[in-house]
């Protein structure tokens, strides 16, 4: 059951999207988010959608993975939609029943918000689908390295992320083992009220936390044995390099942002 977690899932591949410099990819995603938020009209959003769907096609990631990434956020989408639908009370009334009022503006705003969030999720999941976690942390470390000047521990944070990613599967395995061990001793985690089930998790979390501390101590020792002494003077096996395709991607994104702005303007004049 714990195997279903898809956070940071990565699909190895050789597409142009995969081969982009991860730093550029992060910048592009930020630009894309800006693009979505400056879009005021369906036209503008449409341009953004074309952009992200095009990138998805280029990446060669199966289409159903996109739907899978949307699934866990369904409740959020529905909630946002309903909120906008029911609480916007200006504009032409389409439907009225007791205290429920649905207006034309409400419908369009709800649709607009949902499309915006969907585009956002597709864009960010595309980033994690096509970039290995280690590339991501590497890119974050580089992008934020100017912050070292104001004493932000950038290297340490990136190291923590790498180790956290490395230990996710190990800790999942631990949890499975501890759960089985507790079940073998008659622990009941599946029946009873929510409070009862929550309480049944305590004998799982306590050993899990203790064992992760033990792991942390050993890992720290092993890292010291391999000459780890902070980020100073470190080199990397894989150097990040920007190439022609990275600049091309930047250019395409810039064109699309202009497109979004223009689309809004055109709509305004119509």
């Amino acid at each position, binding site marked *: 059951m714990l195997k279903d977690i898809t956070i940071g899932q990565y699909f190895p591949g050789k597409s142009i999207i995969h081969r982009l410099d991860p730093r550029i990819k992060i910048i592009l995603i930020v630009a894309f988010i800006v693009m979505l938020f400056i879009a005021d009209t369906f036209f503008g959003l449409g341009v953004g959608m074309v952009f992200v769907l095009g990138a998805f096609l280029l990446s060669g990631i199966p289409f159903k993975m996109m739907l899978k990434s949307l699934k866990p956020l369904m409740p959020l989408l529905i909630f946002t939609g309903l909120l906008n639908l029911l609480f916007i009370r200006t504009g032409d009334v389409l439907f009225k029943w007791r205290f429920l009022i649905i207006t034309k503006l409400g419908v369009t705003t709800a649709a607009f918000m949902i499309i915006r969030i969907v585009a956002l999720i597709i864009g960010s999941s595309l980033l994690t689908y096509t970039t*290995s*976690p*280690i590339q991501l942390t590497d890119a974050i470390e580089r992008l934020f390295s100017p912050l070292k000047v104001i004493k932000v521990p950038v290297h340490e944070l990136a190291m923590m992320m*790498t*180790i956290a*990613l*490395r230990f996710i*599967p*190990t800790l999942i*395995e631990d949890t499975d083992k501890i759960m089985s061990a507790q079940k073998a001793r008659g622990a009941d985690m599946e029946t009873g009220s929510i409070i009862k089930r929550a309480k049944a998790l305590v004998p799982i979390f306590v050993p899990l936390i203790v064992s992760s501390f033990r*792991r942390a101590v*050993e*890992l720290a*020792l*092993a*890292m*010291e*044995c*391999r*000459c*780890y*002494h902070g980020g100073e*003077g*470190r*080199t*990397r*096996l*894989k*150097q990040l390099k920007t190439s022609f395709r990275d600049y091309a991607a930047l250019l395409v994104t810039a064109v699309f942002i202009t497109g979004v702005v223009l689309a809004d303007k055109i709509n305004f004049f119509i």
Partner: protein
Amino acid sequence: MENFLSAKDLRFSYINESAEEPTETEVLHGVSLDIKKGEFVALLGHNGSGKSTLAKCFNAINTAQSGSVFSCGLDASKEENVLPIRQRVGMVFQNPDNQIVATIVEEDVAFALENMGVEPKEIRRRVDDALKTVDMYDYREHAPHKLSGGQKQRVAIAGLIAMRPECILLDEPTAMLDPKGRAEVMKTIKMLNKEMGVTIVLITHYMEEAAQADRVVVADSGNIIMDGTPKQIFSQVERLRSIGLDVPQVTELVYLLRKEGVDLDAETITEDECVEQLLNIFKKSN
């Protein structure tokens, strides 16, 4: 040959500072041990005998309270020697999961080199070499958690070889592995010692592994009580038993047969030797 690792009158205590009144537990009571370059030494002793503590003194993880430790001629108590010593004296731990840092095999092997500030091209070359040496090159892009225990331990060893150390300390590297993984790791260790001339200090509970070393050192409650070739050590079955250690199966068989009056060499430690001697006895009696 020169002494490569050398401890003299080494005393070490763990200090428990979390208690209200800090307590000191002395683990090593004046240990002296010299290990020569290129030796393959097995360090035996039951739990709490101080063998791991001693190993950690050699690569400057533990600092002795009194006495001296020299690793490759450098004084381990001096702060500026810590990194040079750790580059030359690597250490492998028991749990393979807890010593792999990165999410990809080759990145993990590169970790030590990245810390040392080696040029990227040189890192690439050394990583490939190290992975080929432990026969894990085909797995270089795999995620470590999908490997078997023996494979993980070999990746950990590759991470050290990439540093080009002169000595590797192994703290029960096979304790958590299945027989197949154990055999793989032992093969790698022996290859490193014989072909690359790396000094090996192997801490182990498996007497069969210790029997493959050039020299066996036995520690008991913070002192070194026996030191010699595997033959010299394992022929003293009763003494080993008295401190709670086992002997290899072959040695035990020889010991029991000798007790019954069978004429066997007390210093038999390999199966082949034993079989040969038994065959000779059968031939004679026929």
